[in-house]
């Protein structure tokens, strides 16, 4: 992000209301990393979980949905899946996923082919690039938003066997793909 996010840019975050479920238990119960409140039970069912006491440093990549209630310091790359940052979750790094939903904190750039959704009370410092940006108004967001066209879903179509087409000579002067313009490069000095 070209506006270098700084920690001091973050406004004070209101303390979450104490819920009865969060009150200390009388009996000594082994602490679980399983979150007491999941953002969207149905939407995150079956997702891999980084529990609230876990801190991961390094890059995460894979092919399954992920719910983060702990802390990740590094990039997350789930191009075909959904990443949910829970209310207590914190990602310090870039995120690439099919869909990103943030209830907690993200400090880094986000790219999602389908949708980025920033929920109320979430805090995001970073740029986003997606087909559908959704930011609730009580969310804190500071960054650049760029909308891209949604990719058409890939559908496997079985075609009848066809004769091999004649081989086309490759074009020697074919233009290489242009790199995408970064924010701030659209204008000179």
């Amino acid at each position: 992000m070209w506006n270098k996010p700084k920690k001091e840019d973050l406004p004070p975050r209101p303390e979450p209301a104490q819920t009865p479920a969060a009150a200390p238990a009388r009996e000594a119960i082994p602490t679980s990393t399983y979150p007491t409140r999941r953002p969207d039970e149905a939407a995150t069912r079956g997702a891999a979980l980084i529990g609230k006491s876990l801190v991961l440093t390094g890059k995460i990549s894979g092919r399954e949905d992920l719910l983060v209630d702990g802390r990740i310091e590094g990039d997350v790359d789930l191009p075909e899946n959904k990443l949910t940052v829970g209310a207590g979750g914190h990602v310090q790094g870039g995120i690439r996923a099919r869909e990103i939903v943030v209830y907690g904190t993200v400090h880094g750039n986000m790219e999602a082919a389908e949708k980025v959704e920033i929920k109320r009370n979430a805090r995001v410092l970073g740029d986003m690039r997606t087909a559908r940006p959704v930011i609730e108004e009580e969310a804190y967001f500071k960054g650049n938003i760029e909308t891209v066209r949604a990719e058409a879903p890939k559908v496997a179509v079985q075609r009848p066997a066809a004769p091999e087409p004649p081989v086309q000579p490759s074009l020697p002067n074919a233009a290489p793909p242009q790199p995408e313009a970064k924010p701030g490069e659209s204008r000179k000095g």
Partner: protein
Amino acid sequence: MNASPSRAAAGPAGAAAASDSRKSHGLRALVAALEAGKPLQVMDFGGPVQENIDFITDVSIGAGHRLYVDHLLHSYEYFFSAKEQEEGVFRPGRIEEFVASVLDFPDQLADAILIWDRLQFFPPEVAAAVVARLHRLLAPDAFLLGLFRTDSSGADRAPYTCRIMDGQTLLLSEQPPPRHIQTFNPRTIQKLFQHYREVKFFVSRESLQEVLIRP
């Protein structure tokens, strides 16, 4: 401006206050400038508003401009201590630090800036420093759209959330809590933007001055 305000219920997302829907000549001029057929860089310092995000960035509606979003007032309130805000006294270099931290962009980056009514909620020295920085931030043919309440009653006011409903309609709703507000009139607005090339006022029947400014 031929304001045609109409009262509406609370805005989307459960806005706390009643909303005013009005035709905006400033917005219309700005939108015409944005229809350049190529993606531009727009900056909205009123904070994230879904309608504005959709209107400016949606590739199916327009050119799919890039939109930088920040709530400048929240950034101000976070950066300065309560005492500094209360007394309006800042140690040397403090205002420059603030401007450098929240407006840290290359010069001439922005093709359009939406500052809405935010400048009125800053002390005069902070507003002047922000305006000077925005002047360098704007590209030569860019626009800045501002709103100024000319009501001089001295009462605290809540800042507006400004929603772009279409290319000429704004929906304004006050977002509590009320804050101390600097009163501006056309002469003080001219003075604030004295280094800008053009300051265009749109006549309003109400105590809201709409201003389109070119660097």
